[in-house]
């Protein structure tokens, strides 16, 4: 078991890191915010952890805490102007935000190392820590989704007007979703820095933005399992399709297209909906006949 794991260790690490990013993206989408700020927030976390460790010799714990705090703080500040926007305008605003963060990383050379990025960060974490982090995030998100906050997120996403007339503060919950997303992205970014031993600005560019969004689109944005499935599949796919060499990206794109067309809720959510339909159909079949006849039109 251990030897098998070590053979695939680097791929597993990559899957776990990408799961972290996918969950950060998932939280905001679940609360009905069309933000794509996750890569930018992750880069803030990565730079924070890298700078803290390189300048102060602080351990991973301090770096991760600082990254979580920075990610959360920036996300909460970002949520203030975004609360005035809806839908695709939020997406455009967060793309702009990502470009600003990227430019700062490139031009604040004294702090960030500019185009060279940060190098020589000690490797402070291994697969175990990545596994613990992913498990902790999944646990918290599952707990939240079964509690009042999860119900509120779902209500806001499906119909914000209904949510507010039921006494749910849309702005409050979306700020909370941003804070969670920022914390998750910040820590995941820091783990990337400690894992890769370097931070390069172009890692967190438009490419990652599209990929992370694809994780959630592919897997599903309602169940916590969705982004996990999406991130795992899209991370493993290039590995599995290795024999196709240069055509790998075509397979990647084709899979995404097929899922968007045939499974618009994403893989996991589509399966859950189908399962639920069958369960209610069974429950309905057990009703008395006259009840069924005045049931669904």
């Amino acid at each position, binding site marked *: 078991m251990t030897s098998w794991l070590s053979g695939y260790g680097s791929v597993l690490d990559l899957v776990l890191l990408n799961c972290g990013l996918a969950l950060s993206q998932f939280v905001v989408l679940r609360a009905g915010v069309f933000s794509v700020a996750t890569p930018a927030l992750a880069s803030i976390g990565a730079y924070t952890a890298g700078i803290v460790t390189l300048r102060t010799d602080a351990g991973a714990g301090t770096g991760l805490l600082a990254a979580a705090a920075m990610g959360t703080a920036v996300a909460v500040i970002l949520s203030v102007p975004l609360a005035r926007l809806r839908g695709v305008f939020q997406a455009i605003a967060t793309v702009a935000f990502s470009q600003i963060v990227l430019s700062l990383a490139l031009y604040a050379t004294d702090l960030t190392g500019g185009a060279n990025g940060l190098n020589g960060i000690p490797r402070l974490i291994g697969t175990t820590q990545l596994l613990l982090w992913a498990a902790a995030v999944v*646990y*918290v998100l*599952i*707990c*939240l989704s*079964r*509690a*009042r*906050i999860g*119900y*509120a997120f*779902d*209500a806001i996403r*499906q*119909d914000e*007007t*209904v*949510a*507010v*007339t*039921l*006494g*749910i*503060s*849309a702005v409050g919950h979306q700020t909370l979703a941003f804070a969670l997303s920022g914390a998750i992205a910040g820590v995941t970014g820091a783990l990337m820095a400690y894992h890769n031993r370097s931070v390069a600005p172009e890692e967190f560019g438009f490419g990652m933005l599209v990929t992370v969004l694809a994780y959630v689109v592919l897997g599903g944005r*309602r169940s916590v399992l969705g982004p996990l499935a999406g991130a795992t599949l899209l991370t493993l796919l290039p590995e599995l399709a290795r024999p196709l060499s240069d055509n790998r990206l075509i397979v990647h794109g084709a899979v995404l297209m097929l899922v968007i067309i045939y499974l618009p809720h994403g893989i996991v959510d589509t399966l859950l909906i189908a399962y*639920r*339909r069958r*369960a*209610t159909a069974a*429950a*309905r079949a057990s*009703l008395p006949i006259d*009840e069924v006849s*005045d*049931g*669904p*039109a």
Partner: protein
Amino acid sequence: MGQLELAGVSRRFAGVEAVRNLSMTVESGRITGLIGPNGAGKTTVVNLVTGLLKLTSGRIRLDRQDIGERPPHEVARLGIARTFQNIRLLKEASVIDNIVVGFHRSDPTSFVAQTLGLPSVRRTRAGLEQRAHELLRDFAMDEYAQCLAGELSYGHQRRVEIMRALAVDPQVLLLDEPVSGMNDVEAAELGAMFRRFAERELAVLVIEHNMQLVMTLCDELYVLESGELIAHGPPEQVRNDARVVEAYLGGELC
């Protein structure tokens, strides 16, 4: 308790005055009707009361407390719940989840408990689901609890929306065309139910086009036309008001 009071309420959309200088009272224990031809501004009134639209001028008070400037979620927490003219359920969610979400303001679990998944969260949820089942039984719909809300018939969807509004535990219930698209038997059934809400000291405001129901059900009627109040009083008085008859193109009132 639970008196809703509008004083000189106006709302202007660009050049159009959708509601002009409207004053009305919705009292607890009574069913108040708001009627008028299409486009008279009835739904605008509901949107103003619930805070979804901002007042151009005037005041709205709940138990003498000014609520005219408050955001919608605060208005709801003070005890004003509503249904929508075009049913707005959470279609991806089950019937029971649609009702449970209405209990939002009476769920006391702390953020930490929710984050860590402490047992109190599960207990609270179970309690809320219990209350939702009680509501479903009141409406003779308990067997539909696990169905997806979007798959129910029209009449049943309306009932779920009313249950969700009741889950907010309101003092004032605003029903925007609650029996539209229903036959007379179904409408009378719901009417009897609204009467029971009023008997439980709720202040009920009904916007409705079904004249037969409005005339038999309401204790008091307000008639709007082009945003202006043209008549007000008990149904038998309003029925014979010359301006009301004219607004409805004569003779349509039974």
